[in-house]
């Protein structure tokens, strides 16, 4: 399996060239290119490029949603992509994060803290770490009994967990008001001005381009960068190596002395808390939570983002999240594209059909996703990795002598 799929990607594809070029750059040069690129992405909702800007929904809002999905994809990637545990109830953590913020700061909730001693201006920021902590604990509670199960059972049990969380939100009407949802959830009050009496983060701030969606997109970019730094460092540490070992062969990892259960649990908890963070952002942005937002089908959508982008590759899953969020919204409300009349709403309707077909086709023809993960030589650091990659590519130009060393450096493509 590994040799058949690894060899074709050894051909000099465009992405390979791009990757090698990027890897060979010095760190400062990488920053020089990377920072303006991030700034450009961040300014997208302000620039509103002509064709790319969504028609049916606000572009800033779509990008804010993308930011949250990107966080979810990064978190789920830790669990599915890095550790190889199929979690189908990830939406449960998203819901717990959102509902924690909702329950702590919505006036509809009996646990509302903003009446007595917490200023509404700061309530969201106060609730954010609590939401992350509670989702982490719920990850621990779900993970402790279930992570001893075989992989395919885990998928179904986590699916059940996701559904139970939604049913709890729906049925504990004393707390969550069920289907009516929790309203007026707190948000950070900042940038108050004449035209924006409630600050820039209020859902009432709808004057494009600097509307609330744009501001929340910026907030989520900050969180994405923080989370990427944390997760990236974890991946390069002993923890990350243990995750990869578990993903590739759990029994072998256990025999080699990796405490698999412990590291699986860590992956689960870290993944869960990132999901909770995303949920808290969602609650702050929309300022309203209802159970239907957290249907289990969303878990599949998150999974689709991870698989589509490339399991195990952080940038890949962010791209996957972008595709998942942006494509349906791109077509929504569009009546023509480059002069060709289309029924955009109809196409947007079919999103699950297309994503389903994409999942099946990807799994058959390109299980590694759009941007596949490459296993780096974790133990020896970047210079050696770059050197081996160069050697591999140089050798690849003479395909007759495809050496074993090349496959080793490539090894990650499963």
């Amino acid at each position, binding site marked *: *399996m590994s040799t058949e799929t690894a060899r074709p990607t050894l051909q000099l594809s465009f992405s390979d060239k791009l990757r090698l070029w990027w890897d060979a750059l010095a760190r400062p040069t990488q920053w020089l290119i990377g920072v303006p690129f991030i700034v450009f992405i961040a300014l997208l909702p302000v620039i509103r490029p002509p064709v790319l800007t969504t028609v049916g929904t606000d572009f800033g809002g779509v990008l804010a949603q993308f930011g949250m999905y990107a966080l979810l994809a990064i978190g789920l990637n830790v669990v599915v992509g890095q550790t190889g545990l199929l979690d189908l109830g990830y939406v449960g953590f998203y819901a717990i994060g959102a509902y924690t913020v909702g329950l702590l700061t919505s006036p509809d909730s009996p646990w509302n803290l903003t009446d007595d001693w917490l200023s509404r201006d700061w309530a969201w920021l106060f609730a954010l770490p609590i939401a992350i902590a509670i989702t982490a604990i719920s990850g621990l509670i779900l993970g402790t009994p279930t992570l001893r199960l075989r992989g*395919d059972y885990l998928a179904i049990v986590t699916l059940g967990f996701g559904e139970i969380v939604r049913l709890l939100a729906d*049925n504990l009407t*004393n707390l969550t008001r069920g289907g009516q949802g929790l309203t007026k959830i707190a948000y950070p009050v900042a940038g108050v001005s004449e035209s924006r009496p409630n600050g820039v983060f209020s859902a009432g701030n709808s004057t494009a381009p600097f509307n609330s969606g744009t501001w929340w997109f910026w907030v989520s970019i900050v969180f994405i960068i923080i989370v990427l730094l944390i997760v990236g460092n974890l991946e390069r540490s002993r923890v990350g190596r243990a995750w990869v070992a578990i993903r590739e062969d759990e029994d072998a990892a256990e025999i080699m002395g990796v405490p698999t259960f412990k590291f699986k649990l860590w992956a689960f908890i870290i993944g869960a808390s990132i999901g909770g963070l995303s949920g808290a952002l969602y609650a702050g942005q929309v300022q309203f939570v209802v159970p239907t937002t957290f249907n289990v089908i969303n878990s599949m959508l998150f999974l689709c983002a991870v698989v589509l982008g490339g399991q195990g590759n952080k940038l890949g899953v962010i791209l996957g999240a972008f595709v998942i969020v942006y494509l349906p919204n791109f077509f929504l409300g569009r009546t023509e594209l480059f002069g060709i009349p289309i029924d955009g709403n109809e196409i947007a309707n079919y999103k699950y*059909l297309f994503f389903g077909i994409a999942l099946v086709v990807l799994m058959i023809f390109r299980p590694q996703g759009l941007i596949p993960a490459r296993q780096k030589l974790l133990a020896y650091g970047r210079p050696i990795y770059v050197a081996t990659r160069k050697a591999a590519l140089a050798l690849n130009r003479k395909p007759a002598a495809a050496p074993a060393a090349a496959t080793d450096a490539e090894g990650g493509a499963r």
Partner: protein
Amino acid sequence: MSAVMSAGQVLADGVIDFNVQSLVDNFWALTVDGLTYGSIYALVAVGYTLVYGVLRLINFAHSEIFMLGMFGQYAMLMLLGFTPRGDAYEQGTIMTVTYLLLAMIGGMIVSGGAAVGLERVAYRPLRKRGAPSLVFLITAIGASFVIQEFVHFVLPKLTNNELGGSIAQQPIRLVVPSVQFTVFGADVTNVEIVIFVAALVLAFATERFVTLTKFGRGIRAVAQDPVTATLMGVSRERVIMLTFLIGGLLAGAAAMLYTLRVPSGIIYSGGFILGIKAFSAAVLGGIGNLRGALLGGLLLGVMELYGQALFGTEWRDVVAFVVLILVLMIRPTGILGESLGRARA
């Protein structure tokens, strides 16, 4: 601090109420209804169990196969000239049974065909590549998306809005539920008898088929040891196809029985929860074990209704999940153990 106090009060007030009285009062009625649902779960569970036994694969899309069966039997009834209307059709017992059988065959054809097609299109290419089980599961999820959305958006276009779409089909009722006799004060309706008996007969027939026939021996051989079975001249691919076919046929039959009990349940999203429950039933009885599927289905159906009486209707779906989690934690091999391969002729 009052916020924290009120939090304590909410919990003390009883977020979830226990209603033991309701369970005690309706015990036998709940049991009868539970067995009815349970026999449907059992039939669907057989599909999960067979595929798992042979391929060690959770056929996640089996719930959608069941859902297609509901549409298949509905389409068959429409072909026979029935149209949805408020009251039930009355044609006497023999004609009703004939029509029900025809509807069941319609469901079985659609479900069986879909199951075999799913195996061909989605799973076989993966097997050829020797993909890991995670890849199979993700494919199955993708396939269930495709099937659901096909019924949701494409089927109405193909059938001039007669079938599919985002709302449930208007029910076509062939049987009026009428009480036939009582057990310990619990009414037993004709619908319940039909469902229970039909499901038992089908489950028994499947069990005999797998135990006694040459094909069944092939299935058991592959479940036990695929390599040796192949060496002994059993075609693995054919066995796998047969396994999917049997699972699909039973799901189609179960779909018809289910619509007898829940006439307004024919909707594109109607398979998901039922599929989870049937899977839970299979695990409860011991996945890979045919008798286990039957036992697990009946047990789960009954437990679910007891849970519903105890905690309230809104918690009914939680019961299956909690049972599933508990079984997997305490006895992952289920009540009867995983033994499709070990069953002897």
